[in-house]
């Protein structure tokens, strides 16, 4: 399978949007402009985008606490996201969700999730909806290496297998859960675990957009064809701390820098498409600059946005309820 030039441009654009989105949040957090827990996806772009390039609005994804990248990859509006993260009334969730709870069901984005392992069961549900209503849709659970040890995740593997659901589990193994290495916390390994549940699985280099894209293509086609769930073990790295404010002392010296220089996802993508002459470097530069400008613009909107008010406090608890 081959990506069209339009698809390649779209992929690079999304990756650049994510990178810029996260880099600006990092700055804004450091400047004290964003409250709460903020977990950045910078460095992991190829995974979210490589997977979501295969999806459309009938497909659903469930994300994690580290959800911004998945949101953008799945087509959520970065401006509304930025407003949300700044707690503004016009945020994607009216300011009520914040970074850890961004969602847009109209785009099939079922939510970032503050609960590690919260997403996989929900994905079984979206997959069940697709299967029952015969929408042709599939559902993807993004699962951290840390979340890969949570009971809800294993149960979802089994339920998806036993019910033959159109689901894919994407284990994004960025080598750490908070400060704890996945090399320590994961008994066995992701691929063997999947096989233990009777699911096909493969390991993928998560810095390589094309590798993710191809592996995801197979898994998603399989699910769409009614052949059941499978798992991808995507190995990658995050560039920032677990959350903003993390001093990252647990990582080895130069660990992040080495990844950045040797296998940055955007860099690898650019090398590949220019070397193979699929896109030229000028158009890539345009995409980069547009992304940068777009995010700067989102940021300006977010800063200027109005806050929610007392009238918003008690709305949206229920569809209807007699208080």
């Amino acid at each position: 399978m081959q990506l069209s030039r339009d698809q390649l441009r779209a992929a690079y654009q999304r990756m650049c949007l994510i990178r810029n989105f996260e880099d600006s949040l990092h700055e804004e957090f450091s400047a004290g402009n964003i409250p709460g827990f903020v977990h950045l996806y910078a460095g992991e772009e190829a995974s979210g985008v490589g997977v979501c390039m295969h999806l459309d609005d009938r497909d659903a994804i469930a994300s994690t606490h580290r959800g911004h990248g998945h949101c953008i990859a799945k087509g959520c509006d970065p401006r509304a996201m930025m407003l949300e993260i700044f707690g503004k009334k016009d945020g994607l969730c009216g300011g009520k969700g914040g970074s850890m709870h961004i969602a847009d069901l109209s785009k099939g984005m079922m939510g970032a999730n503050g609960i590690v392992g919260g997403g996989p069961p929900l994905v079984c549900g979206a997959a069940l909806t697709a299967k029952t209503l015969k929408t042709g849709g599939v559902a993807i659970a993004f699962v951290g290496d840390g979340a890969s040890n949570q009971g809800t995740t294993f149960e979802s593997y089994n339920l998806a297998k036993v019910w033959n659901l159109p689901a894919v589990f994407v284990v994004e193994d960025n080598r750490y859960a908070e400060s704890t290495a996945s090399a320590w916390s994961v008994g066995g390994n992701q691929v063997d675990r999947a096989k233990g549940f009777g699911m096909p699985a493969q390991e993928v280099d998560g810095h390589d957009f094309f590798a993710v894209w191809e592996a995801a293509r197979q898994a998603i086609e399989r699910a769409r064809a009614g052949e059941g769930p499978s798992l991808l073990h995507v190995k990658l790295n995050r560039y920032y701390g677990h959350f903003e404010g993390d001093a990252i002392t647990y990582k080895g010296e130069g660990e992040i820098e080495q990844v950045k220089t040797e296998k940055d996802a955007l860099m690898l993508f650019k090398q590949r498409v220019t070397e193979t002459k699929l896109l030229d470097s000028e158009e890539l530069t345009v995409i980069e600059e547009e992304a940068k400008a777009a995010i700067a613009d989102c940021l300006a909107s977010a800063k200027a946005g109005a806050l929610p008010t007392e009238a918003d406090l008690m709305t949206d608890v229920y569809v209807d309820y007699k208080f």
Partner: protein
Amino acid sequence: MPMKSFRQAINEALRQEMERDQRVVIMGEDIAGGLGAPGEDDAWGGPLGVTKGLMPQFGRNRVLDTPITESAFIGCAAGAAATGLRPVAELMFVDFMGVCFDQIFNQAAKFRYMFGGRAVTPMVVRTMYGAGFRAASQHSQCLYPVFTHIPGLKVAIPSNAYEAKGLLAQSIRDDDPVIFFEHKVMYDDEVDVPDEPYTIPFGEANVTREGDDVTIIAFGRMVNFANQAADSLAASGISCTVVDPRTTSPLDKETILETASETGRVVVIDEAHPRCNMATDVSALICENCFGDLKAPIKQVTGPHAPVPFSPALEDLYVPGVPKIEAAVREIMGKGH
């Protein structure tokens, strides 16, 4: 009107709602049964036979047996509800909430608020509660106070078969997540239940007795005990109002406050453990809002602060019964009663 058991009424509500709306699916452990087994299909119809016959009518695609995996399938129901189905999940005993509560209270209950109103989660969790079945500590709890505590959840507790059918139909048609409590010792209890579908709105209490002296507010199975107590107290000249709130969330505050003010004397009956339960909830509500009308302390009659014991000899002492309710009423009526 035909007499139907609590079990039949629930089965009928499920059947009628599934007929009415293709998006309604039910799921749970052995709700049909016999999956992968050589013998009878629909072998169980739920552990106490409540869902029997639904699989033959609606098929395995809408009657979904699950592995033993509550967090996955309850979460699956939440995810399915958010994406277009209207699932009714059976959490066999509410005592099992501890393995799946996150998917109920942090996911389903909060989607709408966290997502700024841009989500609906029309799911129902049917679950068995209550003592008296000799089922011991891990299969006999009430726990509806815990669910009532959580914003975003609705909680229905039918007190008989008629209530069960109407409240369950409403639960399924409701666009918010509803936890539906079925008292396991009531499944064979019969009352008149219409054949045609009907709903009972949430947050509207049912006043089952009207009286002048004391208002008894009770939940679920306890409503029946309260009615019995009221009938027997009437014989000794004490006239009671009995209120069945039907749903603890939303709670029909108006009826509770009105009936409490009318009599000025209140007893609240709650089978649940005494701390932070519905008895405290309703007592506090009344004490805050119609203090001036109160003639006596608000009495609470509840299960004790102890796990439910297995031995029938102890369990019978555990469950608040008619005599305890009568005694509480007589106590606040004061001397001479």
